[in-house]
């Protein structure tokens, strides 16, 4: 059997192209060797030397000096190209981002701000990697983390409960309602001693400042809840549920028996209910994040509340005797 026949019969198989466009000849034995010496240029040249000797030996006997020179030169160039592109190929073969990552921003119901690259949330636990020791750059781990990162802004829910002094309550209630409307919000609830308003989150601080002007704020309880993780989770589950429903709906048209159709319809019904539930939850979170909730209460703390809040009280009995109740009681 000649060498030419060996080449044609697959002993040498150029099975892929390098990224640089230069043919990258992969010998089966060379591929295995490259896995071992991938990181070492010296190792690659050692493999080249071995290959050179082998090829020269075969060509010298079959085709003579000229062919030997041309083939040897071509092989060297190919090996160099393989070495130069090995890093690029390794980077290109890194695991792809999770299926939801790039689609999350375009998921139905997902807010536009999620596509904003300003803030990033990387889920280190999902990468399954251990944290790198200090001073050592975690190369592969960081690549994986970067691929898992999801561009997203925080989804925050602001709520505040203000306890205001009990004075001119009727007028104060009207002023609070008016303030909400002025800030682009609306009235959510109103009773004799309490009012709840919703204002755009961007005007939350303005609302608190405005309320301080209209009355004496005795206690304030402001909470900020970060629901970003919950929001992303629901968005992903919703997207997946919709995709599954689409696929199952396609199956319905190709169902071959009534029994199959019924099963598919039941599954579709279950998925539709799940989608509705997720949509409702997502809408609720969006609404809560978009509009802050401020409740204003016009009544003093009760005895039990004072104990719970641990309101500081001085040990002077005459202080507790102050007030209109005793002063105006002339009996």
């Amino acid at each position: 059997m000649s060498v030419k026949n060996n080449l044609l019969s697959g002993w040498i198989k150029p099975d892929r192209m390098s990224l640089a466009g230069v043919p990258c000849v992969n010998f089966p034995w060379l591929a295995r060797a490259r896995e071992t010496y991938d990181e070492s240029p010296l190792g690659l040249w050692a493999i080249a030397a071995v290959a050179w000797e082998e090829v020269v030996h075969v060509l010298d006997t079959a085709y003579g000096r000229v062919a030997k020179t041309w083939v040897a030169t071509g092989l060297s160039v190919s090996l160099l190209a393989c070495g130069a592109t090995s890093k690029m190929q390794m980077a290109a073969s890194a695991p792809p981002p999770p299926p939801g990552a790039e689609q999350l921003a375009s998921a139905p119901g997902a807010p536009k701000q999620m596509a904003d690259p300003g803030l990033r949330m990387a889920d280190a636990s999902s990468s399954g990697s251990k944290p790198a020791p200090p001073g050592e750059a975690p190369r592969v781990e960081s690549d994986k983390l970067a691929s898992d990162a999801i561009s997203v802004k925080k989804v925050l829910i602001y709520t505040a409960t203000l306890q205001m002094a009990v004075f001119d309550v009727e007028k104060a209630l009207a002023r609070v309602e008016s303030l909400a409307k002025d800030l682009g919000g609306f009235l959510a609830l109103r009773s004799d001693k309490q009012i709840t308003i919703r204002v755009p989150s961007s005007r939350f601080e303005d609302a608190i400042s405005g309320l301080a002007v209209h009355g004496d704020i005795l206690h304030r309880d402001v909470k900020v809840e970060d629901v970003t993780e919950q929001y992303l989770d629901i968005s992903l589950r919703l997207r997946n549920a919709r995709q599954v429903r689409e696929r199952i709906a396609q199956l319905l048209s190709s169902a071959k028996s009534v029994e199959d159709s019924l099963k598919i319809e039941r599954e579709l019904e279950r998925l539709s209910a799940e989608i509705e539930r997720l949509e409702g939850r997502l809408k609720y979170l969006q609404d809560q994040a978009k509009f802050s909730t401020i409740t204003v209460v016009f009544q003093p703390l009760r005895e039990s509340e004072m104990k719970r809040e641990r309101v500081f009280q001085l040990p002077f009995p005459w202080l507790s005797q102050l007030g209109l109740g005793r002063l105006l009681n002339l009996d």
Partner: protein
Amino acid sequence: MLPLQNFLRVLAFLLSSGVLVSCSSPFRVTAPQGFVVLKDQALYDYRATSADGVVLAVRSIKHDPKGDIDFWVQAIRNRMRGVSGYALLATKPVSTRGGLKGVSMRFGHDEGRTSYLYDINLFVTEKYLHLIEFGGTKEELVRLDKQVAWVVHTFEGV
């Protein structure tokens, strides 16, 4: 015998003087025109009322433990706002014609559906904390603002 009699007379005079001093009120206040002074007050040392329900009361509390006026003003504010739910509407310095310097605090509070005002004027002396309180409906107390100021200005305390 004569020196002993003189001694007993002097002793009796000193004792009677001491009793008189201890029984005398540490303040003097004059009710404004249109007010009636109420007798037999248990909680207050002095109380008077107008026909329209504005009430004036005075209490002199032994100044023990000692604290400066800022401490007592803050103690009253905290009590009225934090515990009783009153709105602090104003705080201003006041003084009497006798030279006492104090602080006036005006609070607001709704009783039922009616808005009331409640003034506390505090004077701190070495021996006493003098509290002059006024209370009444918002309209009435605002109407009597000048009389209230006059009562505070003419107050005398030790």
